[in-house]
C-alpha cells in the first residue's frame, strides 16, 4: 500500500479550473480567516479574544470541532481549492483570484462567511464575533479586491443586536446584503426577528439567508436522520419552512421593501411550495388576516434564489419548466466556491437559452438586485 501522503498533488500546474468566458456574478462565495489570531483579533475586544481561546464557539450542536454531520470532504471544500502555500480554502485572496475570480470571469462575488458568530449560544460573543468578521471582510477582501462584496453578518437570535449592526453598515459600499443562516431557533417570520427585517428593509440591503445554521431542531420534522447526505438534502426543506413563515406571519406584507435571497438550497422546490401556500392561504386566510394577498405574489416580488446546488433532472431540459415557473429574473447564479458542491457556469444551464435569459441568470439579475457600488 502506498501511504496516503503520496496523493498530495504537485500543484505546479493549476490551470485546470475550467475556464469561462461569460461574465458572471457569483452570489455565494465563502471566505474564512486563514489565521484567527492574526486576522480577526485586531477587530475583537480582548474579552472576546480570551473567550474564544478558552471556551470556543459553542453553537446549538454537540461537536466542538466540527459540524453535527461530518462533511463529504475536508472543510466541505473542493479538493483543488487549497491555497498552495497552505491555509484553508477561501482564506487567500491571491489564490482565489487566480483559481476562481479570473478564470471564471467573475464580475462580482458576494462573500458569505460561515461559522463566524452566527448561531452561537452566547449571544454577546456572537455579536462581537459577527462585528469582527464584518470588519475583517472589509480589511482583507473588499478593500483589496473590488470584485468582492461583503455580507453583513448579524446575530439573528438577538434582533436588537442585529439591528445595530445593520444600521452601522447601511450605506457602506463594501456591503451588499445582510447575512442570516437558515436554521434559526424559531421560524424567521416570528415576531422576535421582525425588527431585524425592518432594519434591513430600511437600509436597502437585501437579506441573504444561507443554508445551514444551528437552531437546535432536527433537520426533519420527524427527528434526526442518520446520514450527512440526508442532512444536505434537508436544507431545501429548511428554506421552504422559513419562507412559509416569512409569508404567513406577514413579514413581506409589513415590509414591502424587504428583499430576501435564499442561498444555497437550490430552487426547483419553489413552484410546488407556492402552489401549496396559495391554496392553504385561500382556505385558512381567516387565521392569517394580516396576509393580504396570495403568498406567491409576495414571493414573486420580494424573493430571489441563488442557483447552487442546482437541481439536475433526469431529462435536463425539464429544469427549464421550473425556471419558467419561477421566473428567469429571480435566479442568481452562484458557484459556492470553494465548497465541494460547487456549480460550474459552463454546466449550469442544461440547454441553449436566449441571450437575455442567460445574461440575467448569470449576471444582470444579481447586479440589479445588489446594485454594487465602487468603494471610494
Amino acid at each position, binding site marked *: 500500500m502506498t501511504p496516503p501522503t503520496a496523493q498530495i498533488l504537485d500543484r505546479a500546474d493549476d490551470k485546470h479550473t475550467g475556464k469561462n468566458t461569460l461574465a458572471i456574478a457569483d452570489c455565494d462565495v465563502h471566505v474564512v480567516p486563514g489565521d484567527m489570531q492574526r486576522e480577526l483579533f485586531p477587530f475583537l475586544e480582548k474579552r472576546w479574544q480570551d473567550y474564544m481561546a478558552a471556551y470556543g464557539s459553542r453553537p446549538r450542536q454537540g461537536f466542538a470541532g466540527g459540524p453535527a454531520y461530518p462533511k463529504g470532504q475536508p472543510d466541505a471544500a473542493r479538493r483543488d481549492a487549497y491555497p498552495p502555500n497552505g491555509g484553508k480554502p477561501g482564506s487567500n485572496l491571491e489564490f482565489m483570484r487566480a483559481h476562481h475570480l479570473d478564470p471564471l470571469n467573475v464580475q462580482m462575488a458576494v462573500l458569505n462567511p460561515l461559522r463566524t458568530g452566527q448561531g452561537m449560544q452566547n449571544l454577546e460573543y456572537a455579536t462581537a464575533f459577527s462585528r469582527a468578521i464584518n470588519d475583517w471582510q472589509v480589511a482583507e477582501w473588499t478593500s483589496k479586491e473590488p470584485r468582492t462584496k461583503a455580507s453583513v453578518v448579524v446575530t439573528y437570535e438577538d434582533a436588537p443586536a442585529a439591528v445595530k449592526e445593520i444600521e452601522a453598515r447601511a450605506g457602506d459600499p463594501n456591503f451588499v446584503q445582510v447575512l442570516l443562516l437558515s436554521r434559526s431557533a424559531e421560524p424567521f417570520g416570528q415576531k422576535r426577528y421582525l425588527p431585524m427585517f425592518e432594519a434591513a428593509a430600511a437600509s436597502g440591503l437585501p437579506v441573504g439567508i444561507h443554508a445551514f445554521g444551528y437552531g437546535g431542531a432536527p433537520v426533519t420534522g420527524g427527528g434526526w436522520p442518520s446520514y450527512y447526505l440526508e442532512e444536505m438534502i434537508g436544507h*431545501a426543506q429548511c428554506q421552504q419552512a422559513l419562507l412559509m413563515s416569512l409569508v404567513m406571519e406577514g413579514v413581506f406584507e409589513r415590509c414591502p421593501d424587504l428583499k430576501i435571497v435564499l442561498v444555497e438550497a437550490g430552487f426547483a422546490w419553489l413552484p410546488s411550495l407556492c402552489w401549496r401556500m396559495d391554496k392553504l392561504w385561500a382556505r385558512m386566510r381567516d387565521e392569517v388576516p394580516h396576509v393580504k394577498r396570495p403568498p406567491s405574489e409576495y414571493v414573486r416580488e420580494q424573493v430571489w434564489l441563488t442557483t447552487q446546488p442546482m437541481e*439536475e433532472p433526469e431529462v435536463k431540459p425539464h429544469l427549464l419548466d421550473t425556471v419558467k415557473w419561477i421566473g428567469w429574473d429571480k435566479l442568481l447564479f452562484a458557484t459556492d466556491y470553494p465548497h465541494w458542491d460547487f456549480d460550474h457556469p459552463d454546466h449550469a444551464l442544461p440547454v441553449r437559452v436566449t441571450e437575455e435569459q442567460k445574461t440575467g441568470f448569470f449576471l444582470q439579475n444579481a447586479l440589479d438586485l445588489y446594485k454594487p457600488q465602487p468603494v471610494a
Partner: protein
Amino acid sequence: MAGTIGAALLPRKRLQVPTLTLYIGRTLHPSKSIVSPVSTAAPTLADTTRSPLPAGGICCDLHPGVPSNAALLPYLEDYWADTVQQRGVHPLDTIGYPVNAPLTCRPDWRIEGQKPGTSLERLRTDALDAFGLSAAIANCIYGVQLLFSEDMAKAFARAINSWLAAEWLAKEPRLRASIVVPTQSPEAAADEIDYWAQDRRFVQVLMIVMDELPLGRRYYWPIYEAAARNGLPVGIHAGSAYKHPVTPVGWPSYLVEDYGAQSLAFQAMTTSLICEGVFAKFPDLKVVFLESGVTWLPAHLWRLTKFWRGMRSEIPWVTEPPWEIARRHIRLSTQPLDLPEGDGEAAATLERLIEHLRSDEMFLFATDYPHWQYDGLAALPEGLSQDLIRKMMVDNPRATYARL
C-alpha cells in the same frame, strides 16, 4: 374468513360511561359556527351530476372519524377502558386537524352536532355514492402516535382497528381499512400487523409522516418487515406525533404553516426511506404517501439524486438513482394536489410533472373525505386525459394494493 376477527373482538361487555357524556358534549362544536372566507363555491347538486370522473374508481384516502373515546371503550381491554374513564383521557384528536378548522371538514360534509367523518351513512352518500366509488380505503387519523406510553398506544391501536372492523368494514362492503399501529413499539406494531393481516379487508399499514424518528431509521424496520411479510403497502399519512417541531426551523405560529410543513416532512421521509435502505432491505415493499401535496416530488428527487451521486459511498446499499427507487416503491394519493389555479393550468402542470417523474403509475386517486381540499366533485383537475384518470382511479390502486 373475513370478519371473523372483528366478530371475535366484539365487546365482551358494554361499559356504562355516564361521566363521559358531559365530556364528549364539551368537545363537540356546532358546524354552523364555521365561517370561511372562501366558502363561496358551495357545491350544489348540479355539480354532482356533472362528475367528470368515471364510475367504479377507487379512493385511496378517506377518513372515518372517531367520535370520542367512549366509542372505543367497547373495544378497549378492561384495564384500558377503565383507565380512559378514570383518568379522563382526552380525545386523541390532534392540533393538526382542529375539529372546527376549515381544512378538517368541508362545509357541506359537516354533520350537525357531530365530529367530521363520524357517520357511515354520510360517508356513503357524500363520498362512496357521490364519486361512484367501487372501493375506498379508510385511514383513521386519531393521535395514537402522539402518546408517550407505548402500552397505551398499543391498547388504542388495537381498539381502533377493532372498531374499524366492526363499525365500518362490517357494515359497508365497499370500505377497506389501514391498520393503525403503535409505532412507539415496532415489535408491538408488527404483532398488530400480523393479527389484522388475516382479515383481507385491511389492505395496508398506516403510519404518520412525522414520528419520533425519521421513518427510514432501522428502529422501524420490524414494521416494514411485517408489512412485507403480509404483502401490505405502508401508508404514510400527513400528521405529526409532535415530538419535534413540525419544521426544521422550529415551531410555527399557525395551522396554515403546520399543514404547509407536511409536504416538507414528506420530502424528508422520501430521503430517509431511500437513504437508510428500507427499499434495499425490503425489495417488494410499497409506500403510499397520503395527503402529501404530491407536486414537490420531482424537484426533490432531482436534488436527492444529485447528492447521491456524490455521496453514495456513505450509503453504498443504494445502488440505483433515487428517482428510480421512488418510481418503483413510492405512490402518492392525489389530494391535496398542489397545483396552480386557473382553467386547464392545473391539468397541464400535473401532466408536465408526470413527465418530470417519467412515470404515470405513481399517483393514486383520493377524495380525502371529509377534509376540505376542493369543492363539488373536483377531486381531480379538469382537463386530464381519460387515460390518466383511469390509471389514477383504477389501475394504479389495483397495482399497489394486492388486496383490492
